[in-house]
């Protein structure tokens, strides 16, 4: 094993709370109804193809990608389409969703449901991209950028390093961790599939130190696959950030405002790579994902394999319900996730966790004055100066904010986390980004 790597600037060490590391992925079961949003990705919402009364099976195409930056949406259950209308999502904003009443569990015949691992890749690069597109795969780490767009490298740029992101630096979340332990070989075949698209022979699986089991399993399997290596990274937040990971592993830096391809890298989340394997080798569209249900107020934390569109309340019920000490329900991780407005909102392709947090973790504290300790600047992994951005935004000096490079902010929340005066610096950074984008 080679040296443990990490990114040079900033970063923090929050409590890990990885309660569910050893709980195997279990199937969450089928809810009575699912609500499938037509926009679970960055880009244009998909065009709806079904109407109320239609019978669908697992894997039936419900909505077609509208344009290049968009993704197909498939049915995750079999049954009858009840409604196609705007329903309140996790943030309270209404989104177009397809409501399906679950009847049985019939799959589309094209889906290969066998558990055998297919190791030979008989397809060409174009065929693979077409299959990924048809399966509606998007980045499952949280951003939801359509994968076919990300893997099609623009002309004139050359990618020489493929990095599989198995860091999962957010506290509580263990979905990717368990996936690596249980589906390690499939992920590596997924990496080989991506290699074929990129025309390269190597892949690096980045895993952070606090996942010894995943490191052990994958190191063992990679011995039989030429070109695929495991790289252990230090446990530090936000090690899993795309730019941080590239710097840690290759020593290169993604230029400000540019894409990873400009640094010759492609980073894919291991969950996405597993979905790519299933799409290409098993003809399986993206209709389920692993979700960690956890939190310090959660009775039975576990990793669930969840059909997309399952209401969050159904999962919470499975995990012991909402306990009296619950103060917040969070979609995603505690650092970057958002407090839910509506717990009946569905799990989407990008929901990696569902957390029940008590007041002990989630309470807001009174904001004090800045004491100029500089901890936020030390903690910022992008080398920004959050205290300055906060001050300028409070004073409303938007023209000045432009010079602070705030558009490079990855919204990891390190600044708010370390601030001893509990100034909501991240919010000011987000506000600055909104204002600057509005001005453009």
């Amino acid at each position: 094993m080679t040296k443990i790597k990490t990114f040079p600037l900033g970063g923090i060490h929050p409590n890990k709370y990885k309660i569910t590391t050893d709980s195997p992925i279990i199937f969450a079961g089928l809810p009575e109804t699912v609500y499938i949003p037509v926009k679970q990705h960055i880009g244009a919402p998909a065009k709806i193809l079904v109407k109320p009364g239609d019978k669908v099976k697992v894997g039936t195409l419900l909505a077609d990608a509208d344009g290049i930056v968009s993704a197909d949406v498939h049915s995750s259950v079999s049954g009858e389409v009840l409604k196609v209308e705007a329903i309140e999502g996790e943030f309270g904003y209404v989104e177009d969703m397809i409501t399906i009443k679950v009847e049985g569990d019939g799959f589309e015949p094209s889906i290969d449901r066998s558990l055998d691992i297919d190791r030979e890749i008989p397809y060409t690069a174009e065929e693979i991209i077409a299959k990924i597109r048809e399966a509606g795969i998007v980045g499952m780490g949280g951003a939801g950028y359509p994968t076919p767009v990300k893997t099609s490298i623009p002309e004139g740029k050359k990618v020489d390093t493929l990095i599989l992101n198995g860091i999962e630096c957010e506290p509580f979340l263990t979905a990717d961790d368990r996936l690596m332990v249980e589906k390690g070989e499939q992920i590596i075949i997924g990496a080989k599939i991506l290699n074929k698209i990129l025309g390269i022979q190597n892949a690096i699986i980045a895993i952070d130190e606090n996942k010894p089991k995943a490191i052990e399993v994958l190191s063992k399997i990679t011995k039989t696959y030429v070109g695929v290596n495991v790289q252990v990274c230090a446990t530090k937040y936000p090690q899993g950030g795309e730019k941080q990971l590239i710097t840690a592993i290759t020593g290169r830096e993604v230029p400000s405002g540019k894409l990873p391809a400009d640094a010759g890298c492609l980073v894919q989340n291991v969950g996405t790579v597993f979905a790519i394997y299933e799409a290409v080798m098993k003809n399986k569209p993206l209709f389920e994902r692993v979700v960690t249900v956890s939190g310090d107020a959660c009775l039975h934390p576990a990793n669930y394999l969840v059909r997309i569109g399952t209401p969050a309340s159904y999962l919470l019920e499975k995990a012991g319900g909402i306990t009296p000490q619950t103060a917040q329900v969070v979609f995603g991780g505690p650092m970057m996730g958002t407090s839910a407005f509506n717990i009946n909102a569905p799990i989407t392709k990008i929901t990696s966790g569902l957390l029940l947090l008590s007041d002990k973790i989630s309470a807001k504290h009174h904001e004090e004055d800045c004491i100029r300790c500089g901890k936020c600047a030390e903690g910022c992994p992008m080398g920004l100066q959050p205290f300055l951005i906060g001050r300028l935004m409070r004073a409303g000096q938007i023209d000045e904010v432009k010079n602070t490079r705030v558009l490079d902010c990855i919204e990891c929340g390190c600044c708010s986390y370390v601030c001893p005066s509990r100034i909501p610096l991240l919010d000011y950074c987000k506000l600055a980004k909104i204002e600057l984008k509005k001005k453009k």
Partner: protein
Amino acid sequence: MDDTVLLSVLVLGGIAIVSAIVLYLVSRKFAIAEDVKIVEIDALLPQANCGGCGKAGCHDFAQACAFVDEKGFAGLYCPVGGQQVMDQIAALRGFAKVEKKPTAAVLRCNGTCQNAPLKVSYDHITSCRIAARISSGQTGCPTGCLRLGDCIKVCKFGALSMNKETGIPIIDHNKCTSCGACVRMCPRGLFEIRPKTENGEMLYVACRNTQKGAIARKNCKAACIACQKCTKVNAEVKVENNLSYIPDTVSAEEFGQALREACPTGAIIYTKEEKNND
């Protein structure tokens, strides 16, 4: 000892006098002759520098007024100074007076604490722009007032204040100068500059929710449900996208009372204020 004091007074005083003379000469030599018209117009302006006229500030507006022709002058208006100031500028330039109807900002939301009770609690920084990014707000209405008062902070004339009982801002139409700062600030776009009659009457639909009636009513009792009743009072009232809109051409004096009574939810607001006599 005395010598030192005297000496320093003399030396410093001398430097001061010499510098004053130099500065005076330089300022005379390099003085930029500003058009008298600009100076005169600038003196008339309120110097609020609010940007409500669309220019960078009062001086910029004065410059625009000083060099514009009669046709272009009709397009310029200082919302703060109002008709009085514009008439004075017109007289100064020798142009005919341009009549501008009085306007004021209105809040197109009636999601008060009574109409739209809180559904979730928000304990983040008090900024509507942040709140709008995180969720649809405490009331659940995706287009409603967020009640955090970004508009109040941005109003330079004290026309906006938060009503503690209703939770939404109230606008003092006598103080409002229609500068449009609140229109630009509100992340939900709830403010609109609307005409005000001579008696201070205003008529508008206090809702921007385009959801279907039943969904909108779940969050707010005062939501527009697009029942079309207002269109029967006046055919000019348009209902599009599940939302009614009263165009400027509908007279508040004539139809205000009838429209307000026709609306079953109370989304149409018709206000009459005592005229400000000073």
